[in-house]
């Protein structure tokens, strides 16, 4: 038996979530005393040896010409490797790709599927695991009732640690799947944005900013902190910012190290999507804004005065550090 981890790549590069999944897989395999096998799909431009620094026992490189939207093809390739490696635990990242392939893979392998996982199994046979539920308002302890389990790791929930393994093996084989039943026609990149799922810092703003023309200072602050930008639901509903930026219960759930909320009152639906952030800062004119009950640091003040000063102070800080 083994733990199999999908070392997901996008355009040939590994993502932060991949390293989280690798660390998670290594720790799970160690705890359950199983072999840890990583699998890469397609043409990898990054150095594959990067993976070996996470302590895996074996890397299987599948030479496979696939498209990112072909969930059936990706799933069949992974199922093939999982059967070959006799894997009873399969770890994936709960990324857009992970969400598209995980449930499908569970049917292909007749396995249980648990998503939004935040910690390694506390127990084997049956696998007992902690996951997020109720859109971040609670955690659920789930137990699987089948021999195989697929675990999808919630982004930014597991600390990345390197573990060397000098005896890491590597093998390569070719795979081809049936013709894809979904065809990618075009990809449109959103300009210069840091993906919210991967962002370590997120700067978010709400209706308190009064209009889309005032987002310049939010973007400037985000640039300084190398942060992603987000917004509240009303702002996305009003069309001030794109839907992809809406964080909250019915938008994206995020878990950055630092979340700065500007002019967002902190309704329960908003907090549900962001309260997994490690540190939250609220800036609001209203001293009774519910966000001040959830935040770690708060400033009661007008965003139009506070943000320019904060930008200045961060510039000073960066100049001195």
């Amino acid at each position, binding site marked *: 038996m083994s733990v199999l981890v999908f070392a997901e790549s996008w355009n040939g590069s590994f993502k932060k979530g991949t390293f989280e999944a690798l660390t998670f897989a290594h720790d799970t395999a160690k705890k359950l005393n199983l072999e840890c096998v990583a699998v890469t799909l397609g043409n990898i431009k990054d150095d594959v040896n990067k993976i070996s620094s996470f302590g895996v026992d074996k890397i299987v490189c599948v030479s496979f010409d696939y498209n990112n939207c072909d969930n059936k093809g990706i799933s069949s390739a992974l199922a093939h490797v999982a059967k070959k490696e006799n894997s009873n635990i399969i770890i994936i990242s709960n990324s857009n790709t992970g969400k598209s392939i995980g449930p499908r893979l569970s049917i292909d392998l007749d396995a249980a599927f648990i*998503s939004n996982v935040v910690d390694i199994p506390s127990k084997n046979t049956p696998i007992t695991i902690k996951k997020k539920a109720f859109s971040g308002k609670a955690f659920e302890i789930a137990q699987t009732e089948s021999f195989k389990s697929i675990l999808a790791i919630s982004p930014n929930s597991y600390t990345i640690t390197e573990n060397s393994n000098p005896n890491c093996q590597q093998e390569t084989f070719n795979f081809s799947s049936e013709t894809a039943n979904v065809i990618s026609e075009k990809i449109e*990149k959103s300009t210069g944005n840091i993906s919210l799922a991967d962002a370590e810092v997120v700067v978010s703003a709400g209706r308190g900013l009064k209009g889309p023309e005032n987002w310049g200072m939010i973007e400037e602050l985000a640039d300084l902190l190398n942060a992603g930008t987000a917004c509240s639901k009303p702002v996305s509903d009003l069309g001030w910012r794109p839907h992809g930026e809406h964080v909250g219960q019915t938008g994206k759930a995020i878990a950055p190290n630092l979340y700065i909320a500007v002019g967002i009152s902190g309704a329960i639906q908003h907090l549900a999507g962001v309260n997994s952030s490690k540190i939250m800062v609220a800036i609001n004119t209203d001293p009774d804004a519910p966000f001040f009950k959830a*935040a770690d640091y708060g400033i*009661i003040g007008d965003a139009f005065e506070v943000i320019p000063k904060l930008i200045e*102070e961060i510039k000073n800080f960066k100049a001195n550090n």
Partner: protein
Amino acid sequence: MKILVCISNVPDTTSKIEFNDDSSEFKTEGIQFIINPYDEFGLTKAIRLRDKHGGKVTVVHVGTSASDPTLRKTLAIGADEVIRIDSKPKDSYSVAKELAKVISEQEFDLIITGRESIDYNNGAVPGMLAAILDLPFVNACTGFSLNEDSATMEREIEGGKEFIKASLPLIIAGQKGLVEESDLIIPNMRGIMSARTKPLITVKTNGTPEKSESIKFEKPVTKQECKMIDAGKEKELVTLLHNEAKVI
């Protein structure tokens, strides 16, 4: 065009989540249940497609009679009929299996689900359904338009969006973008009256064994009190974020 919309019955987004004394079950007393918001975008899209291209919108749900008020609402909004699979949902796998049984007995051109439900957030049913029925599947779908015998879809990807083509029948897991928030339909009196006479069919089931089970729930740890910094002293915040929180 025959469209199937899979609906979850979930606690209203403003609900405070509480559990019973041994934390094994979600407490439903006093909770208002609603159509899962992601599913409502899909339902609205289905109604628009039917109004444009003709056909029928069928809603399907796995649940007990406690879900009937929510299901009546889907009829008031504009669905033509509801099929309720009479079973207490256990896990994503058993729900997907139950849905697949009903779907394979009829022919649908398009199956729409929400990206995930806002209660258990597994996001697993649509992908499982696609695998069981061997249909093309697009997750996190933010746009859908119909061509002759195929469809063009938009989906969210890391750092942008992707346009995807697939032939019908197919499954999409939708979210906002499929329609806008302002497109959602608030039932009017005529809709509510007609919902009373539209069919709400109950289907018995022998059940499907589940593959996973919730055994316990926990509430997140409550944070320490918020440290307030006076406006004008932004430098102090930067120092705290660096020295104390160690996040910059």
